[in-house]
């Protein structure tokens, strides 16, 4: 932990390399494990890659949505504020599973003809919207935590509102928002398992299938749990290092 605070750049690099090696290399050691794990090694690896794919796409889209909606909630323009408030209210007040099912079953009915979404895309959209709503509150809190004097100083120097936001407010707000955003990301790794309901073959779905074929739930689910733990560890190491990176110039 001390090392990762001291060399955040290297830690992020190491965590990313570690994650990639794990995703594409895990089938190798798993394949020598006894049945039911060994024969299903490739399935486990495929499932883990789907889980990480969903997490990364929804995680990145969720941050973008969170920043936009967080700004919207602080807007002086009330219709925008109302839209963003309603969005957060709607998403936080309904189950994620319902949201996933809604995107999967209802979007094809309301989308213009000719546009078809894959199951994976449906899951990614629903997860992005979901984590985006939770991120909105974190970003809003982060922006509110930036002292107003920082904005005044930037404006007095002649920076435009956009430059003031990008160069001063956003980086400072992220220092406050990041721990909460990282928390949401850790939840997302596991929440992505709900995509199984719309037949996305992610990690949990793989586990369910393998145990159904082998009638051996204990080793299968322990393996799945271990893979999830390794994934969440990689993600929290990554976000922890990012936190240390952004923490410069802070009183501790």
């Amino acid at each position, binding site marked *: 932990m001390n090392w990762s605070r001291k060399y955040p750049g290297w830690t992020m690099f190491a965590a990313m390399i570690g994650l990639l090696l794990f995703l594409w290399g895990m089938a190798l050691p798993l394949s020598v494990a006894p049945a039911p794990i060994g024969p299903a090694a490739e399935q486990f690896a495929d499932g883990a890659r789907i889980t990480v794919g969903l997490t990364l796409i929804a995680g990145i889209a969720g941050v973008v949505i969170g920043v936009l909606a967080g700004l919207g909630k602080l807007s002086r323009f009330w219709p925008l504020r109302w839209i963003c408030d309603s969005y957060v209210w709607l998403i936080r007040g309904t189950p994620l599973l319902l949201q996933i099912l809604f995107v999967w079953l209802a979007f094809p009915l309301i989308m213009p003809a000719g546009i078809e979404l894959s199951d994976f895309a449906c899951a990614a959209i629903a997860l992005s919207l979901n984590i985006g709503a939770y991120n909105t509150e974190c970003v809003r809190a982060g922006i509110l935590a930036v*002292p107003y*004097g*920082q904005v*005044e*100083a*930037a*404006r*007095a*120097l*002649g*920076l*435009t509102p956009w*430059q003031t936001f990008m*160069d*001063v407010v956003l*980086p*400072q707000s992220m*220092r406050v928002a990041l721990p909460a955003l990282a928390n949401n990301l850790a939840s997302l790794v596991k929440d992505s398992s709900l995509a199984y309901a719309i037949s996305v073959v992610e990690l949990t779905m793989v586990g369910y299938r393998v145990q159904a074929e082998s009638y051996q739930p204990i080793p299968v689910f322990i393996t799945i749990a271990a893979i999830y733990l390794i994934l969440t560890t990689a993600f929290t190491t990554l976000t922890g290092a990012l936190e240390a990176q*952004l923490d*410069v*110039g*802070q*009183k501790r």
Partner: protein
Amino acid sequence: MNTEAVLRPIIETRRVGKRFGAFHALKDVSATFYEGQVTAIVGPSGSGKSTFLRTLNRLEAHDSGEIIVDGIVLNDDLKNLDTIRREVGMVFQSFNLFSHLTILRNVTLAPMRVRKMAKAAAESKAMHLLERVGLRSQASKYPVQLSGGQQQRVAIARALAMDPKVLLFDEPTSALDPEMVNEVLAVMRELAYSGITMLVVTHEMSFAREVADRVIFFDEGVILEDTTPECFFANPRHERAKAFLSQVRHG
């Protein structure tokens, strides 16, 4: 010092008014500030002196009257505002250095973003300015690692980096520990003699007396006295000014 020699007006305010709800902060304030002049703005707390200063670069929007900075009318026109803010630097009571940026980046940010200066040029200029305020060796540190006096000197360098025509100081030494006041005043004194136009809201009467060309005394939203430091400190005309001076002398 050079009040008489240079008479080009740089800031003109005509009957400027400002209210905060029921509180009437500025009541028809008219004043003209000339290039090269150093003006000390003094007065009791809540007299409107800081509010007046903050209307000059529209950190507070005035409700009535007219403000003209270097020939440009200050109003809701964003283009005018951007032009004016580029020419008017400001130093705040609480420094307001960008806490996530190094000292060097604090000074180079605005020239690079607003003046579109190249990084190398902005940095060499910043180092020169940091040298001027005696902080060249601190360039790679973060604001939190500096003392209050050092931070305020960086804030002055940051404002100077935009080559402003006017520098506004909003109680620049009020948030400092007593032993750090002098290092900031020394930098301001050096600036004043260099000929830059300065408007300084301050409680440092000795600074006003020694360095300013002109003293403006604010009370309850109006300018009560507008004169030379010699006249103001020797024989103030208004009872309120006399009371204020006896307070700060013995307080």
